[in-house]
């Protein structure tokens, strides 16, 4: 149910984004193949988050197309993405493990996967605590542990390293590396070098007709 078919590729053609009557970017074209890591860079307001939300189907596409290669009529990008925005989607009154157990059940993942997912970001010993007492970095780790929990081919990460310590950034790098190795793809807005080989960079600062 959650293990969607492997991603054959994502093609973006002449994508435009308009927010509040301001053109954020236009004529953006790129292709992401399985095993690709695409890093979005650019100054604040250049549209990194907007692009990620457009790809996830959480923001209107003003013009242009986003296509899954070889996808059927009924398959949309939203079916294959795992989106981790700048908010962690963590509920403070719930325990750390309850937070993740909910997402497991909601995305149809077996409850036995929760423990290993917590361990991916060394949160296992905090499982019984209410999430409200966690620090900003720990909350972020709890949010990111969904990446280890839910199996979807295309990760969209919006500044995933914010408030993480060096050990956690390394853990995130490892997780991303193994995802790419198994044929997954990642599009991430980040300015931190995660040490991933073969990272391509998409610079949105050229704004007008950025392309690869």
């Amino acid at each position, binding site marked *: 149910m959650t293990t969607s078919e492997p991603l054959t590729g994502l093609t973006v053609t002449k994508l435009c984004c308009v927010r509040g009557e301001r053109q954020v970017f236009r004529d953006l074209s790129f292709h992401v193949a399985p095993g690709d890591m695409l890093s979005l860079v650019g100054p604040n307001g250049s549209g990194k988050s907007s692009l990620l939300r457009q790809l996830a189907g959480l923001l209107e596409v003003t013009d242009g197309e986003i296509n899954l290669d070889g996808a059927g009529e009924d398959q949309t990008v939203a079916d294959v993405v795992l989106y981790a925005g700048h908010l962690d*989607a963590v509920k403070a*009154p719930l325990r750390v493990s309850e937070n993740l157990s909910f*997402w497991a*059940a909601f995305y149809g993942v077996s409850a036995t996967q929760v423990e290993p997912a917590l361990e991916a970001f060394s949160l296992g010993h905090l499982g019984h605590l209410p999430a409200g007492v966690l620090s900003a970095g720990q909350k972020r780790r709890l949010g990111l542990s969904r990446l280890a929990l839910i199996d979807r081919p295309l990760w969209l990460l919006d500044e995933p390293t914010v408030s993480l310590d060096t050990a956690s950034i390394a853990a995130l790098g490892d997780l991303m590396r193994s995802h790419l190795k198994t044929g997954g793809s990642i599009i991430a807005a980040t300015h931190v070098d995660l040490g991933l080989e073969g990272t391509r960079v998409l610079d949105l600062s050229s704004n007008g007709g950025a392309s690869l």
Partner: protein
Amino acid sequence: MNAFFALVQREVRLATRVGGGGGMAVFFFLIVLSIVPFGIGPDLNLLTRIAPGMLWVALLLSALLTLDRLFQADQEDGTLDLLVLAPQPLELTVLAKAVSHWLTTGLPLVIAAPILGLMLNLPLDGMLPLMGAMLIGSPALSLLGAVGAALSVGVRRGGLLISLLVLPFYVPVLIFGVSASRAALVAVPGDLGGQSLALLGAVSLASLVVGPVGGAAALRVAVK
């Protein structure tokens, strides 16, 4: 269906934990109804006459009180994005939200209603019809309210907006609910109570369709 029950379970947990606001509606219900006798005065006959109407108006207002946080809390912490992207149809997600709202607001109010009815001199043989009507009518309040909550999810302090949007649609529930509850107290020609109860059920069933479909459509617009 696992996703559906997981969401209901999480919502009920959140409402019952500290700071979840689960008891808020019940206490508001209690406060409104306990000041009515002070305002009206100790006229027992008058209180009996207005008891069903007062109980229903208070039920409507209490249900509205917790509606504004139904989707807004999820939108503020990013949960809403992930709910929208999940494999479960958004309609079922909205239905789960409405069901949890009813479990944490509607159901406790229905259970508290007869106790507060005593304060309004509601006769004992009027309790059961009142509870029955509330049990049938209150799901409509959560289901219709979910549409209003979804429409105003992006609006800061959207509580008042929800009231304006939703209250007109609560009017049929109020009319048929009061009429069904009153039938046991006042002699009415024909079987007006039964008819009202049937119509109240019809309103709830229609809301069962309108609520999830309308709420999901509104949410899809809201996240974009």
